[in-house]
């Protein structure tokens, strides 16, 4: 049970026109793990995430979520699978015409058929769980700060109590304090809800702080898949540059 693989990516290849984004990517994530996907800009991290969450189809290769092949999945099967994971998009992607509570209530009402009052109450529970003040419930996304938007998006992603959570650049555009707060929230939720988390990120702080393992993507392949410590000692030049920059070195020294 503990070694059960939630996400398995095998030999995924993707090309846009003539440019090859993925040239045989393989890695897997065990239940309860927090795994980061890193790589330079344009290395195809976000495309890979979109492929795992059924928003984009790879050209060849196989992706299994909860043991089910998703690359050929459509219709009801795909929708049932979608209820088992939550996604926090980069800029939150909250529906701007709805308040925070209504945003969270959308999946509750649509998928579980809860009545308005019950959905609202459960939305309040999620709002409290992600550490937002309750008076944010009736605010519109336009009235929230960056950090609050991210938390509200997380609350919506957690609405159906998913087993697995996908985060796209969760700390991008946040100040260090908010980013750290968000990271510790993810850790805390993993502890108490047993979530499996896959995050795509640029943020070295986040990687050191919360990732159990990280996959480094470059040249369309996985150049390294290990704990952040081990990855930072990788002989691979791209990975070394990434971790070996001034910021990366400073972080590692602090750790040691």
């Amino acid at each position, binding site marked *: 049970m503990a070694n059960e693989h939630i996400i398995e990516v095998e030999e995924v290849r993707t090309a846009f026109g003539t440019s090859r984004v993925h040239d045989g990517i393989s890695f897997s994530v065990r239940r309860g793990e927090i795994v980061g996907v890193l790589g330079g800009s344009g290395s195809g991290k976000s495309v890979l995430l979109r492929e795992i969450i059924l928003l984009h189809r790879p050209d060849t290769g196989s992706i299994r979520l909860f043991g089910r092949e998703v690359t050929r999945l459509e219709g009801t099967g795909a929708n049932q699978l979608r*209820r088992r994971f939550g996604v926090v998009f980069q800029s939150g992607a909250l529906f*701007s*015409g709805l*308040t925070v*509570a209504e945003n969270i209530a959308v999946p*509750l009402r649509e*998928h*579980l*058929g*809860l*009545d308005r*009052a*019950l959905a*609202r*109450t*459960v939305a*309040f*529970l*999620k709002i*409290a*769980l992600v550490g937002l003040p*309750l008076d944010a*419930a*009736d605010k*519109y*996304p*336009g009235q929230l700060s960056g950090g609050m938007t991210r938390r509200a998006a997380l609350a919506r992603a*957690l*609405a*159906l*109590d998913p087993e697995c959570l996908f985060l796209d650049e969760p700390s991008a555009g946040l100040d260090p304090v908010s980013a750290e707060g968000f990271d510790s929230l993810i850790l805390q939720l993993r*502890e*108490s*809800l*047993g979530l499996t988390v896959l995050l795509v990120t640029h943020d070295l702080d986040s990687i050191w702080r919360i990732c159990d393992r990280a996959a480094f993507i470059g040249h369309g392949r996985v150049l390294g898949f290990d704990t952040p410590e081990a990855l930072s000692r990788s002989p691979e030049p791209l990975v070394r540059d990434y971790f070996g920059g001034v910021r990366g070195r400073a972080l590692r020294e602090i750790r040691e």
Partner: protein
Amino acid sequence: MAQAPILESAECGDGLPCLRLTGAWTTPHLASLDSALAHLRWPASRQVVIDASALERLDTGGAWVLHRLLTAADHRQVEVQLQGLSLERQALLELVRRQGIGAAVPGPPRPPGGLEQLGRLAIEQVGEGISLLAFLGQVWLAFLGNLARPSRIRWRSLLAVLDGAGLDAVPIVALLSFLVGVVIAYQGGVQLRMYGANIYVVDLVALSMVRELAPLMTAIIVAGRTGSAFTAEIGTMQITQEVDALRSLGLPPLDLLVLPKIFGLILALPLLTILADVAGIAGGIVMSAAMLGVGVSDYQDRIPQAVSLASYLIGLGKAPVFAAIIALVGCFQGFRVSNSADSVGRQTTVSVVQAIFLVIVSNAAFSVLFSALGI
């Protein structure tokens, strides 16, 4: 698939009344859990055992219902012994309890009453009118600035507007005006034929098209086509902070975005109106030739008497005014877009409605003015 959740009274063996939780206490089952809690028959005892040992699954949704069950027991002053909850599940329950969300939360803020809404609407409308006037003033000042320094005029943008709002609109304006001409000739022809006044169909078609219908139809088409595009373009730039970027580069958005649109449209709309005049009369000719035997040569003879130069110029002269209204409202509403996607849609709708409204109102004002002047 996990079992549906059950909350039932049972015998636990040690003499105390017992509530047993079984199945999956998870968020997908929230609705049935909620109603099970509402319909729960409490045992008539001061002490109750809650037995969770047969619980298959528990997540935040289930933990929350359990929290409400414990709170309800508290209210009834029933002493609860919670049995069979694993350490992890206890931690989850504790996490949910800490949030302090009970069965009821404050409702959404009530929408204001009818009278208050009416008042707010009135204030909003007056405010919007004032802002529109202020915008007109700013545009005017920017225009004067451009006149003083013609090098600041953005010819390229102006030509782009002429192309997009003028040239690209030619087919639709021609087709619709042609059809309006057909309809007027047909409807008027039916009546005129009864009096043997077939030839007057020329007066009817030519005068109504040239003086009223061509400018108005063209303005309405352009408001729907181009006014909305102006709002959406500026509104999206507003959201992506492109407008702010222009300002901070020292490039006034009014010079770059608004003036070319207004003057481009002021040039394009009269040209489209002339096209609509021609197409409308052509439609009239086709219909009246087929139905009344009034053909091209009759129109050639009759139009100079039927349509005075003044009527023609009045029709044509309205077009630049309509153009200014459409472009001004379109740009103004674009700048009113606030930071959300649905705001673009809302302001675009408002822009089209307001532009058409103002065009028709000003058309009526022209009619009153001209009849007072006796033209």
